């Protein structure tokens, strides 16, 4: 009987695999190179890298950047748009913004060129009145023209369709009768929410991805099937939930932040189980540092994001703040004599100077190497490192202009990089009203654990928690993620004028659709939830507050609620966000949002804990000079060989294949019962 649950996360360099044997409770990990541009090769190689048969796999869950990369590299489409007469340029005009505040340089290419955006006669007014019924003959003619021009997907984008989808429905019905594939979508199907640019952009980018993502998923499914796989195959969405392949083919835009979302889901799970429910995650990659906040075990969702300038996606996604300070970020001194880190990056190719692949400008990783923090003989990814080249680069580009020696210059690079990372942590905590002392920093990815100690002291975080396998956190998150579907409908009326019966009917409709989605996926759930939120504000305000509405659903029927319930839910939410209410203020409901969630069984992290009954001394691998303001002899340990309960005082370096953990002087690391390393200030 097949009992393996497998998470596969495809990253820029490596494809990570997390294998959980449900029968024995044992977990394993595997890592293979990512294949590009088609990631399916690496995906399949990773699945079987540890010798498992596809037929033994019960569940395969995939976190993918296939969609994101197709958007960034403009490899989607070709597609066409059919839109309201007079509005053919909405996608290109955006919200009248610009790429950067200063400089007035840069241009914008929409994913659908102007001659593939065709207008037809139709018009719905803001109150939902159909002023002009859609000209169906014109829609058919436009469809034919787009097909002749090579379109493989089409989006119908009508103004005010959120208020009444009748014209869009008629248009897509006519198109579906003639379109050769199922890549036909209307904006009101994808996002029935007010604001035409955001709705059109989300819908168009979704259509743009359909050919690419459908092809990718079809290749995976075919290969899985041919290999004898008979289990369930699921895809991680940006909201941290998973969906089945038919849904992913219909809504590929929901994979836009699939990989990072899975990492945050895993972090939340590790946080809950290990007794640190308040966590700030930090994923340090080659070019960026991604930060997310988990409050009491829950991640925070953002309503929209931009994949690139002018490429707006409005669908709930895990909120991740990104700054351009990764291991490959370049350190440089400007003409005014100020030391800067990034945004320019050497990435992973050519990478840091020490990689010897042609970059000669110093990076954050080069500084870590020069200071002895990274073992030059055993870098992540193999090979050896060119330490002298890194020293020369730091001397030339930082030491000489600032009048510092090599070690001091390297230390300066690390301090400025730490302060930039600390700024990102402050952004998601202090700036959002969260007290840092309540939070634990959880680094994942390759580089974060080198900077954990510095972030504890710079921001005032309580401690740091380095998961046992930080390099495969996203793959592990795939195995943990719940199944989730989000729905939205714009209401846009004063609360007092809202028909609560109609609201309840909308909720019931979302609930029915969500339940069907869960049932169709044929996945085992440990529980199901339907969560309802209203976007509300005082009349006159533009920024809305997310108001959780307590709604009971019995046998598919929504238990009636009244206006008073909505108003008191608003007051509770508004008070929580802004501190005080506006006396006598009149409130308005902008949108209704429903999330239907199928809870999946949780894995027990104890299965990941060290099983060796060794001692700290057995894990000791000697000492190495490491620079902390001056050169000190730091103890070196094999991290995975440290037993539960082991305590390591700084200065020390814990090494493992996918990361390096730095324990600075004055800090102490302890291995908890799950194998996590907890770094705290030494007791005074």
């Amino acid at each position, binding site marked *: 009987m097949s009992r393996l649950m497998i998470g596969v996360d495809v990253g820029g360099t490596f494809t990570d695999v997390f294998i959980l044997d449900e029968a024995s409770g044992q977990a394993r990990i595997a890592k293979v190179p990512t294949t590009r541009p088609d990631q399916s090769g690496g995906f399949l190689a990773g699945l079987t890298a540890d010798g498992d048969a596809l037929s033994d796999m019960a569940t395969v869950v995939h976190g993918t950047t296939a969609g994101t990369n197709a958007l960034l590299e403009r490899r989607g489409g070709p597609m066409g748009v059919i839109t309201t007469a*007079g*509005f053919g*340029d*909405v996608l*290109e*005009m955006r*919200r*009248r*913004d*610009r*790429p*950067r*505040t*200063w*400089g*007035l*340089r*840069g*241009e*914008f290419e929409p994913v659908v*060129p*102007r*001659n593939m955006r065709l207008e037809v006669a139709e*018009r719905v*007014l*803001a109150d939902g009145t159909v*002023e002009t019924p859609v000209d169906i003959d014109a829609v058919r003619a436009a469809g034919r023209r787009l097909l002749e021009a090579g379109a493989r997907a089409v989006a119908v984008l009508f*103004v*005010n369709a959120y208020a009444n989808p009748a014209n869009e429905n008629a248009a897509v019905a006519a198109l579906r009768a003639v379109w050769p594939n199922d890549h036909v979508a209307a904006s009101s199907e994808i996002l029935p929410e*007010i*604001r*035409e*640019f*955001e709705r059109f952009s989300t819908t168009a980018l979704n259509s743009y991805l359909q050919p690419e993502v459908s092809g990718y998923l079809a290749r995976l499914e075919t290969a899985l099937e041919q290999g004898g796989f008979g289990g369930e195959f699921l895809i991680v969405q940006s909201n941290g939930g998973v969906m089945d392949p038919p849904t992913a083919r219909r809504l590929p835009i929901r994979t836009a932040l699939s990989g990072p979302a899975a990492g945050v889901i895993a972090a939340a799970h590790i946080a809950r189980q290990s007794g640190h429910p308040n966590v700030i995650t930090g994923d340090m990659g080659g070019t960026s540092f991604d930060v997310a906040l988990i409050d009491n075990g829950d991640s925070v969702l953002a309503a929209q994001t931009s994949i690139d300038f002018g490429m707006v996606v409005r669908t709930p996604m895990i909120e991740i703040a990104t700054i351009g300070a990764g291991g490959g970020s370049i350190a440089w001194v*400007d*003409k*005014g*004599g*100020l*030391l*800067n880190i990034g945004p320019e990056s050497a990435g992973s190719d050519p990478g840091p100077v020490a990689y010897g692949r042609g970059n000669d400008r110093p990076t954050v990783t080069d500084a870590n190497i020069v200071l002895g923090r990274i073992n030059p003989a055993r870098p992540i990814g193999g090979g050896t490192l060119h330490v002298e080249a890194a020293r020369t680069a730091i001397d030339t580009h930082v030491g000489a202009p*600032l009048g*510092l020696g090599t070690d001091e210059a390297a*230390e*300066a690079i690390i*301090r*400025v990089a730490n*302060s*930039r990372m600390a*700024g990102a942590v402050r*952004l998601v905590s*202090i*700036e959002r009203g969260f007290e840092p002392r309540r939070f634990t920093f959880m680094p994942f990815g390759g580089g974060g654990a080198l900077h954990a100690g510095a972030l504890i002291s710079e921001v005032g975080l309580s401690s740091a928690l380095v998961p046992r396998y930080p390099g495969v956190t996203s793959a592990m998150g795939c195995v943990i993620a719940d199944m989730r579907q989000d729905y939205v409908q714009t209401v*846009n009326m004063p609360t007092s004028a809202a028909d609560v019966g109609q609201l309840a009917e909308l909720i019931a409709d979302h609930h029915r659709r969500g339940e069907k989605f869960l049932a169709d996926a044929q996945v085992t759930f440990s529980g199901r939830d339907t969560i309802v939120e209203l976007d509300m504000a005082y009349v*006159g*305000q*533009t*920024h809305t507050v997310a108001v959780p509405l307590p709604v009971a659903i019995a046998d598919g029927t929504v238990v009636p609620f009244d206006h008073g319930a909505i108003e008191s839910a608003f007051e509770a939410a508004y008070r929580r966000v*802004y501190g005080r209410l*506006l006396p006598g203020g009149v409130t308005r409901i902008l949108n209704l949002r429903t999330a239907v969630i199928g809870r999946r069984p949780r894995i027990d992290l104890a299965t990941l804990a060290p099983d060796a009954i060794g001692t700290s001394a057995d894990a000791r691998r000697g000492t190495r000079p490491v620079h902390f303001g001056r050169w000190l002899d730091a103890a070196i340990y094999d991290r995975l060989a440290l037993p539960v309960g082991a305590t390591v005082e700084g200065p020390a370096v814990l090494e493992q294949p996918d990361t390096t953990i730095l324990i600075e002087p004055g800090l102490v690391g302890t291995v908890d019962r799950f194998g996590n390393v907890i770094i705290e200030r030494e007791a005074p």
Partner: protein
Amino acid sequence: MDIDPITLAVLAGRMEQIADEMDATLFRQAFNPIIAEAHDASHGLYHPRTGETLVQGKSGLPIFVGVMAFAVKAVIDRADGDLNDGDVWAFNDAHLGGTHLSDMRLVRPYFHDGKVFCYLASVGHWHDMGGAVPGNYNPQATEVFQEAFVLPPVRLVRGGELQQDIVDIMLRNTRLPASAKGDLNGQLNALDLGVGRLDALLAEYGADTVRAALDALSGRAEALACAEIAELPDGRWEAEDFLDNDGITDTPLPIRVALEVRGDRLSLDFAGSAPATAGPVNISRGTAIACVYVAIKHIFPALPANAGVLRPIDVSIPDKSLLSAEFPAPTGGYTETILRMIDVIFAAIGKAAPERAIANAYGTINALSIAGHRADGQRWVMFSFFGGGHGGNPETDGLNHGNAPISTATIPPVEILEAAYPIAFRQWALRPDSAGAGEHRGGLGAVYEIELLEASARAFLFGERGRFAPKGVAGGAQAALTRFAFGGPDRWDTPPMVSKMVDIPLKRGERVRLQTPGGGGYGPPDEREPARVARDVALGYLSAHRADAIYGTAWREVNP
């Protein structure tokens, strides 16, 4: 005291984050969309003696980067040493603080060890400040009193005590007191937050270190500016452009600049610019200097928001000109004048150093409002700024439909406007043939056509570029003019003053149609690749006959 370069880099980031966080606090809490959505606000830290900008938030409106120093200086002068911990000064007087009367400025001395360590300031564009026209864009004003209520610098908070009588005066002088109250609270909260964050920073690093960092940052900003200027060739270049009129008399108004580079110093002399005008296109001297800052920072984007940048730059503004207007000359349309100043500076740079030049952007905010009463008697006012093309530049064509160089504001969605007001947009589109030709052409302007769905209303336009088109640089051609018409759909009328008009009567089914300029072109049109011309024609950015006339017919040989 000397400061090591590492601590300096760390503190620079910390202080910038404090200013950014003050911005974010106000954006979230503001009631009016001009602050909440368009980010027409700014916050920063200012020098304890001179008021000069030390650090400013990155997300506020670009024009405030230079102008806030004048607001702080006005308070320093008015207080004349009589300052106490916990005081907050407030005013909107544009002749003292720059920009226009819609901007409410709050200035708070930050004390350490009994002395002023620096100032914190907050500015935000309030929705309404009284005056003759709702929203305060009155193109027919001839004195500030017809534009808005004028508040000189007063102590709004004394030693931590909010002076309710002053708040009462402010709120009695606006059509939208709830909005004003919300914005005022947001600004006070932003200042409180800045004080808390500075307290923590000084506790962590010590006041001497932070002071040393502030001094060093000014020095480095100056060094950076000198290094950038030194890369320009020595010499003297002139440029001129014109405003259509001041809304009162239909006479073109020249704006002239002579730009001179000598080594690492730059001078800008605006002699020859028009005298102060009766209508509201005047600006104060402070606004003019701030505008130079904005133009220079667009040319050298790496320059920080720090007054040190201005030290190697001499700015000469002639007395009694529209660039140095005195109380009570009206300043409501200041945006149009500073956009033209930026245009002439860009044109002069285009002559001095074409490889750094950016052609003119569309050059007007085109403030358009439509107001009336619904059938139930309820009053409504739709008010927005509209977009246009950016200029071609050495790397790329200009951006289609961007925001103004002095702003980062986004435009409200059609669906939000239609849901809020009895109007329907009939067109919201790029404007073909509006871009200036060039090796890198300008971006396209836009066409907005709006139909009235109620029985009657009145429209107001405060625009520009109706007679003088945005210019190209380095051999690039000029863009199309602003075109405004009303009536329709069969008979269209145009404003006698081209780009400015009040009380335009509209009946149900009638429309206004605003066509905005594109950006100027960069480089000679005959150096544009024929394939790019062919693509512009294929996509409908450019009509075939105009392509032939401007670029020749080589594009017809290309398969796009």
